[in-house]
């Protein structure tokens, strides 16, 4: 990601080759033909919808007004939003779920990468790796199905194991219990993506100079010491970049996953901002209000990622932008 952003900053025109933009374009018309039609698609599907943000400042009603002739209401939608107790509930759920996912996801992926890195039998390492990122390629629909089946009180494997080990007396209906929902979301996310997440760290570890391990060993550092003083510091830049990128996404707790795992008995803890927006749009048809929530999400994400980038620049002089 760093490379992408950095290289996009490079200046394009080589010095000495000047010309008006138009002349250049005519000169490079073949490149224009190869790029402009596809850029138009990008602009259509990614930038044109921003026009719809106007709705948040209007009282748009589908079927009654168009976006243009709907009456302006200024910041009323936002005022209503900030005085809506459901909004704060959704905000709390979103932050809770995302932070749990962030922490569990990072710790699990880094731990797995470190442990795989310590395995000396190549074939075993490969096999474990291959198996570990299989779930990344299945849909959340299938994953949610698997979670429901595994946690079912009626013969689900988790309950079977817990009961047989004597840890619980009766099967626990995990999916229907509010206190477990966030944890289930975070852990099922780990199950699905831990192997995939570990790949980046493993490729960062592949670049560590073996001399570092040797000299640490000569200085008397054991396995654990070498992990904490050589491996982890070496992948710290990678961890930092990914952390910054992910903090920008803290208001997006994963719509598909939460939507599919949620059910009526855990609704109170499962209604995140994205689901809140979805409900307003598709159930209550309050487009203006729903758009206002969407704008809130985008703006906060933008601010967060800017702050995270600034902080990481301050800490050791290197940000991602």
């Amino acid at each position, binding site marked *: 990601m760093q490379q992408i952003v950095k290289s996009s900053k490079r200046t394009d025109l080589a010095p000495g080759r000047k010309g008006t933009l138009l002349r250049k374009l005519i000169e490079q018309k073949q490149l224009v033909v190869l790029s402009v039609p596809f850029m138009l698609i990008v602009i259509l599907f990614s930038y044109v919808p921003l026009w719809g943000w106007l709705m948040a400042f209007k009282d748009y009603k589908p079927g009654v007004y168009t976006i243009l002739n709907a009456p302006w209401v200024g910041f009323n939608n936002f005022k209503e939003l900030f005085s809506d107790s459901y909004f704060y509930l959704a905000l709390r759920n979103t932050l809770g779920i995302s932070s749990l996912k962030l922490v569990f996801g990072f710790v699990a992926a880094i731990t797995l990468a470190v442990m795989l890195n310590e395995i000396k039998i190549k074939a075993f390492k490969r096999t474990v790796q291959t198996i570990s990122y299989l779930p990344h390629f299945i*849909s959340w629909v299938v994953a949610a199905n698997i979670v429901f089946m595994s946690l079912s009180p009626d013969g689900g494997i988790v309950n079977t194991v817990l009961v047989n080990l004597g840890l619980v007396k009766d099967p626990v209906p995990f999916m229907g219990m509010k206190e477990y929902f966030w944890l289930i979301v975070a852990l099922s996310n780990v199950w699905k993506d831990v192997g995939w997440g570990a790949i980046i760290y493993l490729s960062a570890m592949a670049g560590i100079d073996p001399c570092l391990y040797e000299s640490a060993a000569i200085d008397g550092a054991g396995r654990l010491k070498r992990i904490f003083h050589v491996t982890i510091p070496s992948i710290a830049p*990678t961890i930092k970049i990914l952390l910054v990128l992910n903090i920008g996404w803290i208001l997006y707790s994963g719509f598909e996953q939460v939507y599919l795992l949620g059910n009526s008995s855990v609704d109170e803890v499962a209604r995140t901002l994205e689901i809140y927006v979805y409900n307003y749009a598709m159930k209550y048809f309050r487009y203006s209000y729903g758009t206002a929530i969407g704008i809130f999400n985008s703006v906060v994400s933008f601010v967060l990622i800017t702050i995270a980038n600034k902080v990481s620049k301050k800490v050791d002089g290197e940000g991602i932008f």
Partner: protein
Amino acid sequence: MARIRVSVNERVESAIFDTINYALMIFLCIVTLYPFLNTLAISLNDAIDTVRGGIYIWPRVFSPYNYIKLFSENNNILNATFISASRAIVGSALGVFSCMSLAFTLSRKDFVLRKVFTKLLVYTMYFSGGIIPVYMLMRSLGLINNYLVYILPAIIGAYNIMVIRSYIDGLPAGLIEAAKIDGASEYRILFQIIFPLSLPVLAVIVLFIAVSQWNSWFDTMLYCSSTRSLSTLQFELQKILMASRMLSESAGDAATSMSSSMDVSGMVTPTSIRAAMTMIAVLPILCAYPLLQKYFISGLTLGGVKG
């Protein structure tokens, strides 16, 4: 003496570490694979027998009836399978073509629009208009209940383009120079020089797009839920998942939910149907996975994500 003691301690520490490490890795593999094996076993087990419980990774009373029932009762499954497969094929073919063209022009340092196009693309990774404005755009484009809604928005993926571009950047620059001196057009350079050399990365992108097309269900629910003929396999599975959950929620305990569902669907319980459906939805991925997995990693490490 002290030196030897340290190394003995070290060896003990190392052995303990390895034991725990290997045990945990094996545990991880079991936790990852078990649900798939369990689902497969349940899907191939006689539905009535499944109710007794205790099916782990091998069917007790083998029966293909769940699959037969699934395809014969829900006549939409076959059509949904076709839509899902066609999405994956058409989507990845068009997607890889357009990503390659765009990536090629963005890799050309002398291209005047390179800077502005790169910026426009990178920004799309960090924000979106939001579900409602996007929905309204699709509606005004006439893409609601239209097959094209699966294909058009997914043609361009900023991430995929960046992966291809960084691969093209790694090719020797002299190739393009030489071709230009020989008078080759840009189209020729792209299709006869860059394309054959980029096949490894293009294979990865085809896989990425095909998997995400095969797996998506939310766009079906949002844009095409009222047109049966456009339903996808994942969406059908999602409906079954929701329905069986509703059933078990309203019926209270497991026993009544079993009997009530048996009245409806004869010999097949929701668990068995769900298992069979899940297997159909993951089967192509499970089959292709061992063959393709090495490309997946190279795809992730090839691109700019190296950090």
